């Protein structure tokens, strides 16, 4: 089942390869069908998932079964390296509460992204092949339980992203694509080193061989005591934690490694921005939760304060930078930085409330920010500008669009009743309850005010008041005596059309539903998070 959900887009990609590139509609429909099938599979996995099983570490007897679900584990690469012993790389996938929420999010955002890609006209065939590879790689990352496999998917993901920004992007696309590619690659080099170090430090409790299994690595007793990253080697464990953390922090992106994000967003086409903000950023924090923290719990405990500080910096710095932006898409990009800061802050709390909040924030940010980028795309398609001060008074002429923007903006600023509120609230509850991060939380709440400030201000400048004299749209007096809006080369519907509604309405319904009743997502998370907190807990660390 999991393999199918991972490789469905690849199959779609192969089919597209066989379709002549003139048949654009067929290519699109194949991609859409694959994405919808992924969605159906995600729902089936969600239905079949037992939220009582915790995941994170191995179940009884060192086997992943009984803890992880939908597990598939077969030997993939087996080499005999002579004196180094056998090299075992496994195709090992499975889900627990942490990954299943991300799997569902990925399926959802991928499908929305396909719909949003409908307007891509340039090299449609190549675009959708790359898009499908990207979708498969993202999904693969979230279900991998073998570090090597994770690394492979992680690297595969880079390539299509590079081309999708570099070919289908805006005017400065090559700079942005290279920046994105190199930055992420820089992080993954360290990841590779740590991965190899871990391989030689961990033994699979069942076979007794060295292993890349993340499940085995999450249990400290599987480490060889005096190995390079074994419990005795305190210094190297700190170094490994830090470089691994930086590798993931680049993806989050965490201050000061965040500057690739605004550039990538500004240049990327709308669907790629949606994928980038909706799913890709989550891989950074997901990597921390799945790999960084459980493997080095004592270093995690020692660095809570620092992570919290960086979280708070992200929140406030991102919000203030967003306040100063004139490009709407750049503002939304900085808002992503700010909102990912809540995830970091929640993680740094180290308790269940904060971690549940962080995971829930990852999910909610995925849906909300996808909405934000889609809405930015709507106006960019029509007016060919995203300059906030080139509009004014749009609410009078595009009421449905204005209504959607209002709801999405308020979801982003954390209005109760919409999902973002609950996750931010839980993050603060957790961060404040932890003595380490209490004062950080007290400062970080300022982000709530600044967040409201930049969102409401942009809302006012674009939608309220009257048309600005230099606006990017014209007003034409209609036959009914009212003025109508007119974009100079836009042939389509002025207000949201059916395709745009089909993308936005599901996201909006999810945002509202999860804001009123969060348990469908939280219910899957809680047992895993409680287990994770136990694994990370300083109480059990002295036993090492």
């Amino acid at each position, binding site marked *: 089942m999991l393999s199918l959900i991972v490789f469905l887009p690849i199959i779609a990609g192969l089919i597209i390869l066989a379709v002549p590139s003139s048949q654009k509609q067929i290519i699109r429909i194949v991609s859409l069908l694959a994405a919808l099938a992924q969605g159906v599979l995600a729902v089936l996995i969600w239905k079949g998932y037992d939220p009582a099983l915790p995941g994170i570490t191995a179940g009884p007897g060192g086997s992943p079964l009984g803890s992880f679900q939908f597990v598939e584990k077969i030997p993939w690469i087996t080499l005999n390296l002579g004196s180094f012993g056998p090299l075992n790389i496994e195709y090992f996938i499975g889900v627990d509460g942490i990954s299943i929420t991300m799997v569902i999010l990925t399926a959802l955002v991928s499908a929305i992204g396909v719909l949003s890609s409908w307007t891509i006209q340039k090299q449609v065939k190549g675009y959708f092949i790359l898009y499908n590879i990207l979708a498969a790689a993202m999904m693969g990352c979230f279900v991998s339980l073998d570090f090597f496999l994770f690394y492979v998917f992680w690297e595969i993901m880079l390539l299509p992203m590079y081309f999708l920004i570099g070919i289908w992007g805006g005017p400065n696309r090559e700079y942005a694509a290279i*920046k994105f590619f*190199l*930055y992420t690659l820089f992080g993954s080099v360290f990841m590779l080193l740590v991965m190899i170090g871990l391989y030689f430090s961990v033994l699979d409790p069942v076979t007794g061989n060295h292993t890349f299994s993340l499940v085995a690595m999450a249990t400290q007793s599987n480490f060889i005591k005096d190995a390079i990253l074994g419990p005795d080697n305190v210094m190297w464990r700190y170094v490994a934690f830090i470089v691994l953390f930086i590798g993931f922090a680049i993806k989050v992106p965490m*201050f*000061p490694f*965040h*500057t*690739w994000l605004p550039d990538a967003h500004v240049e990327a086409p709308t669907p790629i921005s949606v994928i980038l903000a909706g799913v890709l950023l989550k891989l950074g924090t997901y990597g921390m939760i799945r790999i960084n923290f459980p493997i080095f719990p004592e270093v995690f405990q020692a660095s809570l304060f620092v992570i919290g500080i960086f979280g708070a910096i992200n929140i406030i*710095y991102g919000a*203030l*930078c967003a*306040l*100063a*932006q004139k490009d709407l898409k750049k503002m939304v990009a900085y808002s992503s930085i700010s909102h990912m800061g809540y995830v970091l802050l929640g993680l740094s709390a180290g*308790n*269940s*409330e904060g971690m*549940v909040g962080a995971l829930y924030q990852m999910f909610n940010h995925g849906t909300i920010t996808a909405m934000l980028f889609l809405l930015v795309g709507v106006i960019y398609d029509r007016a060919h500008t995203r300059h906030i001060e080139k509009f004014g*008074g749009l*609410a*009078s002429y595009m009421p449905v669009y204005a209504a959607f923007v209002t709801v999405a903006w*308020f979801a982003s600023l954390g*209005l*109760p*009743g919409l999902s973002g*509120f*609950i996750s931010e*609230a839980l993050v*603060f*509850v957790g961060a*404040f*309850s932890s003595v380490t991060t*209490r004062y950080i*939380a*007290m400062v970080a*709440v*300022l982000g*709530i*005010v*600044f967040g*409201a*400030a930049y969102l*409401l*201000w942009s809302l*006012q400048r674009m*939608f*309220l*008041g*009257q048309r600005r004299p230099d606006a990017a749209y014209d007003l034409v007096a209609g036959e009914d005596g009212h003025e109508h809006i007119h974009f100079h080369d836009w042939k389509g519907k002025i207000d949201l059309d059916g395709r745009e509604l089909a993308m936005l309405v599901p996201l909006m319904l999810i945002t509202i539903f999860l804001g009123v*009743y*969060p*348990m469908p997502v*939280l*219910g899957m998370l*809680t*047992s895993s998070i*409680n287990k994770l*907190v*136990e694994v990370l*807990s300083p109480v059990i660390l002295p036993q090492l």
Partner: protein
Amino acid sequence: MHSLIQLSIVVLLLPLLSFVILIFFNRRLPRRGDFVGVGILGTAFGISAYIFWQVIVQSYDPAFRVAWDFTWINLGNVPGVGPLQIRMGVVIDNLTSIMLAMVTLISLLVHLYSTGYMAGDKNYGRYFAFLGIFTFSMLGIVLSDNLFSIYIFWELVGLSSYLLIGFFFEKESAADAQKKAFLANRVGDIGMWLGILILYSQFHTFSFAEIYAKLAAGEFGLSNAWLTAAGILLFMGCVGKSAQFPLHIWLPDAMEGPTPVSALIHAATMVAAGVYFVARIFVLLTPDALHVIAFIGASTAFMAATIAITQNDIKRVLAYSTVSQLGYMVLGLGVGAYSAALFHLVTHAFFKACLFLGSGAIIHAMHHEQDMRWMGGLRKNMPWTFATFTLATLALAGLPLTSGFLSKDAILAGAIGFAQVEGGGIYYLIPVLGFFSAMLTAFYMGRQIWLVFFGESRTHLKPAETHHAAHHAHDSHDSHTDLHHAEHQVHEVSWNMRAPLVILAALSVFFVYSPDPLDGGKGWFMKMIPTPATVVGQANPQKGSLIAAATATQLAGAVPEAVVGHAAAGELPNAASSHGQATSAHTYSDLRQAEIVHAGHAAHYTAIYISSVMVLLGIGLALVVYVFNIIDPEKTALAIRPLYLFSLNKWYWDEIYQATFIKGSMVLATTLSWFDTHIVDGMVNGVATLVRKFAFFNDSFDRHVVDGAVNFTAFTVNTIGAMLRKLQTGKVQTYIVMLILAVFGYFVFYFTRLIY
């Protein structure tokens, strides 16, 4: 589930239903669906009235309380805490049932009134939808049994307020005002949120009842200062929502919204939610926190009153008056006059709603003229409005026989008692500011009544261009009135706008609340809303008393009669010590409360005398200035020009905030943005440039040194090869010679080895 709980949930959800129906279907319904809003609110009020009847009239029990809750978020078995759930619930006690009836009644009247006032607006249906979601959120605040859900609905009323202030969003000023309101409220909200977090971090629950029980049981793990901080931070929510100093700046601007909205949200209900919230958390406020609250309330009451006396916009006078009256309520809570403050909340809601709806009627009749300088003489044209407006004004000014008199007097009496108990000195500032504000209130309301209703019409005095601008700003609203505006005929408003005025005015008379026109304490309200016993002792907050714990779980337990009676026996100076020994079960804080209540009772007539004198002074001054023209207001204004400008410009708070916080944030934002593109990203690009430089260097190194070495090797090999090639001639003879030489050489080598 108790049947009252079920009914209250129905009441809560009805306005939400109205919102959902109207936001999606208003264009498909006849009359844009206004009857849906009015009908649903009518039903909600009916049910609320039933709840009120059951709770207040039937039970007539000060300790009445039913509650119900459910698990909203289940966090499972959390390490270090155990099973953890976030629960949501509903509580009904006397305060809730009174608030429920009050909110639904005023909301119903405003809905009804709006069918006249807003008729013809292009977003008429949406307006009723927004009123629906506001009422829903407000009822949520009233019914909440825990801090978390109060916070949720708190922000939701903020949203509805945002939507309604900016209802005429084409106006730049309305868009500014709505943003300002939301942001000012958010500043208050983060304080409130931190206060909630302090309590949650200790108790792992949001429920009022559980928090109070655990506080009383001494389970608060942090120091006393943290508890005081929690109280003050929670109070910050009230500072934002109830427009207390220093966050009061948004409320006057909120008058950009339609006038019925000002009546409902920005006078009667939402802004009073702050006071309601402080009442809910009253028992956990430490004496220090209460002092802060009292001083904030007193200074707000005074400051707003001084601003109100010079404003010319009819709604702005009322707005500052609202701020001032909210200051009274907060002052009342701060000094421990709990019942009086809530009493004032209710009486104020009715008479202030009446005033706003009355001003709406005037504005409507005057074709959107809001400046009192161009009104006058409306008494004859609008008798109903005049009568109700005057009655409500008397209540606001606090003249005997009105409801406002009862409640304001109770607060001021409490303030005197508080000052006595706290030992005088600086604490006397609070009643002094209160009485002085009472005088100012009487003055500015007298001024308003005179300018609007008496004298001759001054419409023709208005400068032409501003006149036109004012109309232009409104023409998006309801253009049909503009057709008539040239004639300037002022009519009494229609029945659907008149009926709410009459009902609200009727509710501003004393006998609704108390049989004694001079003492609210004899009425049902003060009896049903007794001051609850605090759960924090002053000396040692960790060790609350058992009795306090028992009463705390009831949220609104009465002050034990024994303490009041004992303190009343006339041993105030040494009451603390004697009580400390006699009834050790009571903490000092309980006693303090009891003393204040007693001293408040004792000061009852003092307060009446002083406040009556002050009110008469205020009205007298208004008469002297505006009726008898003994003092010319314009000359006076010139004579004390700095003071006049200070008041007219609202103490310059807007300018101060603009120059500090707003500008500061913007400068910080631009600086950080610059820092981000130039320094942080500059470093990234710098590293990239360095790497590229290094790569180019590497390239030349590669070409010259590495490749040079390779080429040198090749060259060497080549040269040697060329030399060696000379040996390869291809002639057999040469090879044979070389072979012979080689063999010869070998033999020479071999024999040499043999010899040595």
